[in-house]
């Protein structure tokens, strides 16, 4: 086996040094009744060449671009990723290193993450961002837990227009501690009904997502105001980070914690993971923040360098009193997002974000012209909800046969939205792709 370097001579020589007669004898401390008696029942090993075939055959079953046109976002977005980003991210010094516990030989990772933290702060208008969480869902759950720690209150309110999966993760995380999770309904215009907060007391935090699950841009100023009135923390979640290349950032509204999904920033969709949990807040909450932080410092000779810092918040120091149990995060994905943000830059970001907006507007208009109903009137970024006629399911399945996925049906998440579909459009879809989609729906 090419990954195992030991020759028979090596093994004999080493066993001799250890003072045992065989490899089996090395396990003398494992009691007989703990041993596995039979060999592992696993497939026989494949050669690299056989495995190439096998993996290619599995991958070939998948419906992906450019053959398939998938008009779905809903938390995972098809964006172009420059080859330079993938190539740099494949450098083995980034890929095969551990969490930077020895800063002198980890400055690449450390400076890279420091730059990531900075670019995320600039994107979201926040004062501090951590080195990443697992994904958008756990970032939100951790934000809510952070708010309960700061406020010492046990109740949170979250919008029903937060990604349904994120709300499920929040409930899982908050369930054993018996925190109460209240859901805020939505209005006819596709935004959260913040008036539902009236009468709710003792809230640790109020969380909404913008753009929300229906693609609509929420009123973060109103969130901030409602939260301050109740001495609750305001939390803005998001699934499409690219939106903040165009939209006013959450920080400019004074939101306390911003958390969401960074997959759009140069990370392949990979069937939903690995992706990137983004987490940022105001500086005065720093000691309550979960996750790793990289800080700037100097070495013995006064030279600039970077270290993991404020570790007294973390599990390996504080153990059960830590701000989170997170240890391994999504470091390489954060690095990838930084490389992507550096590549796209100030000039590319706005243009790309506006292009996403315009393409979605184009499709929206074409569907409206074809007499389909755009379900919610609020402005959107690159996703929106369409209400189709009641027999649409047949059309949807016919389009699947034509290698087009015409949105995500919403009824299983919002039973009241029968025949409603969430459509997403990014820069990867051409005008022609959209025209074909509309014609396909019409016929």
């Amino acid at each position, binding site marked *: 086996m090419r990954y195992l370097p030991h020759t028979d001579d090596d093994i004999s020589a080493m066993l001799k040094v250890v003072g045992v007669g065989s490899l089996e004898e090395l396990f003398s401390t*494992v009691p007989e009744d703990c041993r596995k008696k039979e060999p592992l029942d696993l497939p026989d090993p494949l050669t690299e060449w056989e495995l190439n075939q096998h993996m290619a055959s599995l991958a070939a079953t998948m419906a992906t671009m450019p053959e398939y046109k998938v008009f779905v976002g809903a938390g995972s977005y098809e964006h*172009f990723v420059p080859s330079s980003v*993938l190539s740099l991210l494949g450098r083995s*010094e980034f890929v095969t*290193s551990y969490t930077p516990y020895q800063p002198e030989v980890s400055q690449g990772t450390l400076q890279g993450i*420091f730059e990531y933290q900075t670019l995320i702060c600039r994107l979201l208008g926040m004062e501090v961002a951590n080195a990443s969480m697992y994904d958008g869902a756990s970032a939100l759950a951790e934000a809510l837990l952070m708010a309960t720690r700061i406020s010492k209150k046990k109740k949170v309110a979250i919008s029903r227009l937060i990604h349904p999966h994120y709300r499920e993760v929040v409930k899982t995380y908050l369930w054993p501690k018996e925190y109460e999770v209240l859901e805020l309904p939505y209005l006819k215009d596709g935004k959260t009904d913040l008036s539902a907060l009236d009468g709710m007391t003792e809230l640790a935090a109020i969380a909404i997502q913008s753009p929300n699950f229906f693609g609509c841009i929420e009123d973060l100023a109103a969130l901030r105001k409602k939260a301050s009135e109740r001495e609750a923390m305001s939390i803005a979640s998001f699934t499409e980070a690219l939106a903040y290349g165009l939209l006013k950032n959450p920080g400019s509204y004074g939101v306390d914690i911003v958390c969401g999904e960074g997959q759009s920033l140069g990370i392949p969709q990979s*069937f939903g993971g690995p992706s990137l949990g983004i987490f940022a807040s105001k500086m005065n909450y720093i000691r309550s923040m979960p996750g790793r932080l990289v800080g700037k410092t100097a070495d013995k000779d006064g030279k600039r360098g970077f270290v993991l810092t404020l570790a007294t918040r973390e599990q390996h120091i504080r153990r059960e009193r830590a701000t989170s149990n997170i240890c391994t995060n999504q470091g390489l994905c954060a690095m990838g997002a930084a490389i992507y943000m550096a590549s796209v830059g100030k000039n590319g970001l706005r243009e790309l974000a506006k292009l996403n907006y315009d393409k979605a507007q184009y499709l929206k208009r074409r569907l409206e012209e074809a007499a389909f109903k755009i379900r919610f009137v609020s402005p959107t970024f690159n996703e929106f909800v369409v209400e189709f006629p009641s027999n649409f399911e047949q059309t949807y399945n016919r389009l699947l046969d034509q290698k087009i996925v015409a949105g995500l049906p919403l009824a299983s998440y919002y039973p009241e939205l029968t025949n409603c579909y969430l459509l997403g459009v990014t820069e990867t879809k051409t005008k022609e792709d959209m025209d074909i989609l509309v014609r396909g729906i019409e016929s």
Partner: protein
Amino acid sequence: MKEKLGTTGLVMNEPLLWERGGNGRCGFSIPRRDVESFPINEDLVGPVPDFPELSEVDVVRHYTRLSQWNYGVDTGMYPLGSCTMKYNPKVNEKYANLPGFAGAHPFLPPSMAQGTLKLMYDLEHFLSEITGMDATTLQPAAGAQGELTGTMLIYAFLRSKGIHRSKFLIPDTAHGTNPASVSLCGFHPVPVKSNEDGILGPEAVAEVMDEDVAGILVTNPNTLGFFEENIREISEIVHGKGGLVYCDGANMNAVMGIVEMGKIGVDVMHLNLHKTFSTPHGGGGPGAGPVCVKKGLEPFLPVPRVVQEEGTYRLSYDYPGSIGRVHSFYGNFGVMIKAYSYILSMGPDNLKKASQLAVLNANYIKESLKAAFNLPYDRPCMHECVFSDKQQNVHKITTLDVAKRLIDCGFHPPTIYFPLVVAGAMMVEPTESESKETLDEFIETCKAIANEAEEDPDLLHEAPKNAKVRRLDEVTAARQPCLMG
């Protein structure tokens, strides 16, 4: 004398991203605009984020230089204890990047996603077989999230029987994530002392086990590198009072094909795909922390689960007892691909062989270095061994100094100051990837450093000298945090 591995090389300085570049540069091929520009309510529009303006060449040079300041497994031996820094096969990366996988939307209808679902289904079964457990979830994104998930499964199991318990037993050799994870689940961690052999004694567990204890979280093999020999008896004690046994499987690399966790009383355990199953650590992730359980806990596993009917795969949510979801979608699928590829490349015999060689390597280092460094527990070890700086303290040399000197000599240091039960611990886990020649070089280097500690201690105090930077001021970094530029 043979040349040392570590040397100086030409390493470039590189400013921060925003300290370079020029107005108007862009390193991205802007996609064609084939639709008109539509108006947008100006109140919604913000200023353009202040990102740097760089060409593709600027970006490539920047990150290439940064990468050269890092030490990775591909650079050399990386013996971080309890981290299992084994070789990360190149071919696994290729598979994860196949367009069919990398470009797959998680909401694809199942008929269009059979390949990913089959891979997940098969991987779950492989991991169940390797651990000897009955069912597996791949959803947790890292070991700590696996711990949290596993602890919640225990909470849910007890609660389904109307039982509410407040405490969880955690041995003193535990990873820091262990107490933090049970605490997130609302349990109060109760420490259990390991005995003079560095393992748990049944009497120590019996002493603290009562009807308010939900379970015990045992790392096995533990962080001193020892197999918890009394695990069956401990399991009986815990089960006897209605508690459950959680095994932290971070160190599973020692016992694949050798110990059947499902038969020794373990009810739930997690694995770290980025340790035992060769997926790279990425400078801090992404990892994956699958959780394997016995039958009784299966109804509580996170949803969705992958099910198979007549060769067709789909996702099922039909588990009313489930604790719910722990990930935005199905977990770190890209990491699962690499673990799956590793298992298929290795096959059953080589997986067992990998564990045997990992244990051989650790014992070889232990025997070869126990004269040069204090070995607090001189017993046969599993995948890792723990030394201390006791002998070097006489010369005012600490574990930190030894670690930094190792850097100058071309090796990544071991895990230091952990486990906490050994003062000045140096926890060495060579893994099976290292050849005898490399181990010999490491051993000679460590012995030379032990000599230097006596004869030329300043060499250690001043180390590292060959790295990109010298020792960094961590105190100022924490007192006056500068977290963005």
